[in-house]
């Protein structure tokens, strides 16, 4: 056992590091807000993405012809490791590059890949993912937006929801129902769509946090050429699953505050005349959060070890989001409660802000990219091999499935 890079990995890390040092600023030792928080984040993110693209770092695991350098999985992790130490704009390209890119890579024609992948990697064109609908969340295959074939094009009608970044996206990947007479998983077909197409209307949704990072997207007689279909007619679910698998990897850890913040806060915060850290209940909570945080960190190291040897990692990483989102919520809650009856007050203190933002934002993380409940089902069925629930929608035409809306 060791934590050393191989000589090749060390050399690669040094190259990453040197480029980053010449092109970005290291994060402060004490984490404060990103310097990009109050700027035009899209402009800043595009500029950073372009810089990375020109140097080959944007999608380093992609083949050269699409702007990558054909990096191995472990090199991609090393790059991510190093980049995370720098203060760079985040939160704009993750869905496009993490979910739409792999689907285009797998299912688009060579001409389409040449046309769409390089601008995606370069950050010139932003992509979003149009899956969830008002009546199809965890049960996303229950979606009802309609696609009707008309010669060499399709006419789309319906509504998508929770679409992150739709308001600034140029393209989207879309799954819709082409035949409600088939069983629900069999009647789906997958496309990519120009978000500037006539008939698409994007309406931001205000979230618990007060921000609006996701949207409702309405489709009214939107035309999509058949050439923008990904996979065969009726293969929409299969293609969507590829995307969702990538989503779980893309979502991963919950950013925000962690046990270090709780520990530091408890050391300095006064409670009835002594440091809060002297409180037995607080100490037990901190011990448990430390075990969870390190359990995730060490799980990641095990995954990296497998990749480093060229092996396929085990299913351990499936626990990441469920553990980190719950921990984030608990730590935010702890920080707010520690101020007793003044905990509701907004403050300029960056620690208090972080605890309050964590507490307000964590409910979203427990839902996005697979709810806690769906993730437990996935662990139980795919990792532990337990049987699926008997389902009321198996072997039934989509149009005959009870929906509560009839």
């Amino acid at each position, binding site marked *: 056992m060791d*934590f050393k*890079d191989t000589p090749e990995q060390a050399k690669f890390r040094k190259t990453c590091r040197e480029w980053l040092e010449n092109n970005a600023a290291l994060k402060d030792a004490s984490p404060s807000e990103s310097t990009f928080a109050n700027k035009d984040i899209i402009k800043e993110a595009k500029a950073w993405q372009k810089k990375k693209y020109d140097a080959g770092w944007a999608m380093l695991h992609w083949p050269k012809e699409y702007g990558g350098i054909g990096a191995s999985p472990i090199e991609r992790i090393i790059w991510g490791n190093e980049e995370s130490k720098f203060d760079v704009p985040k939160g704009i390209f993750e869905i496009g590059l993490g979910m739409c890119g792999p689907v285009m890579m797998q299912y688009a024609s060579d001409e389409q890949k040449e046309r769409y992948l390089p601008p995606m990697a370069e950050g010139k064109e932003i992509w979003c993912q149009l899956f969830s609908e008002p009546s199809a969340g965890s049960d996303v295959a229950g979606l009802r937006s309609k696609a009707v074939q008309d010669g060499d094009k399709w006419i789309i009608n319906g509504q998508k929801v929770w679409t992150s970044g739709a308001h600034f996206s140029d393209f989207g990947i879309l799954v819709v129902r082409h035949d409600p007479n088939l069983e629900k998983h069999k009647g789906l077909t997958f496309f990519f769509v120009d978000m500037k197409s006539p008939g698409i209307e994007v309406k931001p949704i205000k979230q618990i946090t007060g921000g609006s990072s996701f949207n409702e997207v309405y489709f009214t007689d939107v035309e999509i050429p058949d050439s923008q279909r990904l996979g065969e007619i009726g293969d929409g679910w299969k293609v969507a699953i590829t995307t969702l698998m990538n989503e779980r990897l893309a979502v991963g850890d919950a950013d925000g505050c962690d046990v270090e913040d709780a520990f530091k806060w408890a050391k300095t915060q006064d409670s009835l005349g002594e440091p809060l850290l002297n409180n037995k209940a607080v100490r037990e909570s901190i011990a448990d959060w*430390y075990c969870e945080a390190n359990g995730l960190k060490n799980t990641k190291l095990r995954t990296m070890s497998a990749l480093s040897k060229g092996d396929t990692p085990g299913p351990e990483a499936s626990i990441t989001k469920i553990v980190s989102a719950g921990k984030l919520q608990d730590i935010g809650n702890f920080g707010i409660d520690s101020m007793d009856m003044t905990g509701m007050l907004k403050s300029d203190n960056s620690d208090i802000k972080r605890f309050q933002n964590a507490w307000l934002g964590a409910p979203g993380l427990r839902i996005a990219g697979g709810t806690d409940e769906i993730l*437990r089902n996935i662990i139980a069925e795919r990792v532990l091999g*337990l*049987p699926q629930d*008997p389902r009321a929608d198996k072997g039934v035409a989509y149009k005959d499935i009870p929906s509560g809306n009839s």
Partner: protein
Amino acid sequence: MNLDFSDDQKFLQEEAKKFLEKEQSVNRNRSVLEHDENIDIDLWNKIVGLGWTGIRIPEEYDGLGLGHLELCVIAEELGRYLAPVPFSSSVYLFTEAIINYADDSIKKEMLPKLVSGEIVGTLAVAEELKAPSAENINLTFSEGKINGTKIAVPDAEIATHAIVVAKTDSGASLQLVDLSANGVNIEKQENIDESRGYFSITFKDVESKLIGDNSTGWELYEYIINQAAVLFGYEQIGGSQAALDMAISYAKERYAFGRQIGSFQAIKHKLADMYIALTLAKSNCYYAAWALSTNSSDLPSASATARVSATKAYQLCSKENIQTHGGNGFTWEYDCHMYYRRSKLLSLNIGSLSNWREKLVTSLEQSNIN
């Protein structure tokens, strides 16, 4: 980056698994539980024969001269198969204390016999029905002799020797005692996992040998249990995995309301939570194994992290395994209770969950890394 065991270590683990499976270790545990003695001597002798008691003992003392990582993979299998033997007392605690702190003449005398099984050791600390501490040790050492009583000493029926934590004029010390000496009186104490034995030992003017120095014995004891916590952690994750596997297979074969109970989300989510707790514990044990094998300055926090998460994982997995089995899980006939008992025994042997949580936070305060 290589947070994994080597191929040789994995091979050793596979061999250990095959051996304990073939020897029907779990059935042996039941048999010990149902009879008077608290050990399976035959299994213990076979384990000694395989050389496992000498894994960490240098070759010059007839041991295998291997490292802590080899001990970790063996511990995981002993935990998985509930082996009713004094391995933790004799190997993780006693032998490690001798290797760390005894002088050469004691090593020369004892280590080869720990390999051959002539000597079996244990560690005696507690004196009252509460957590032992540097302050509440009353057994005294003076003029080469110890006087006092220890309770809840594991495996003392087979142990030939013990390391005893004693009070001295200048603090605490570790004392090596021959349990066949005059003035030693060992009595069995009934406990809630009779597959392993607990004993009280009274020492009346018993000669002892100092291990380490005369004042810092409590710090030495703390270091020994910091090391042992990693190995106990491996036994605990082995047991957790066995309890989870048992629950999974029952959830697949048992039908209720016309379907496998494993198809109900109430059961699925329970088992997913067991898997999550086990995965966190396992990853923390890997890191702690690295810290142990390299004698890293991270050991106190790493071992406490492994210990806390492994204790939580085994307690969760063993109790929810019973719950998944319903009424059958509560019967003597099903094996569920043996994991439940063992999870409690292992979680208390070197101190309770709440004490290890406290040790963890204290180590964070001391390292001041945060």
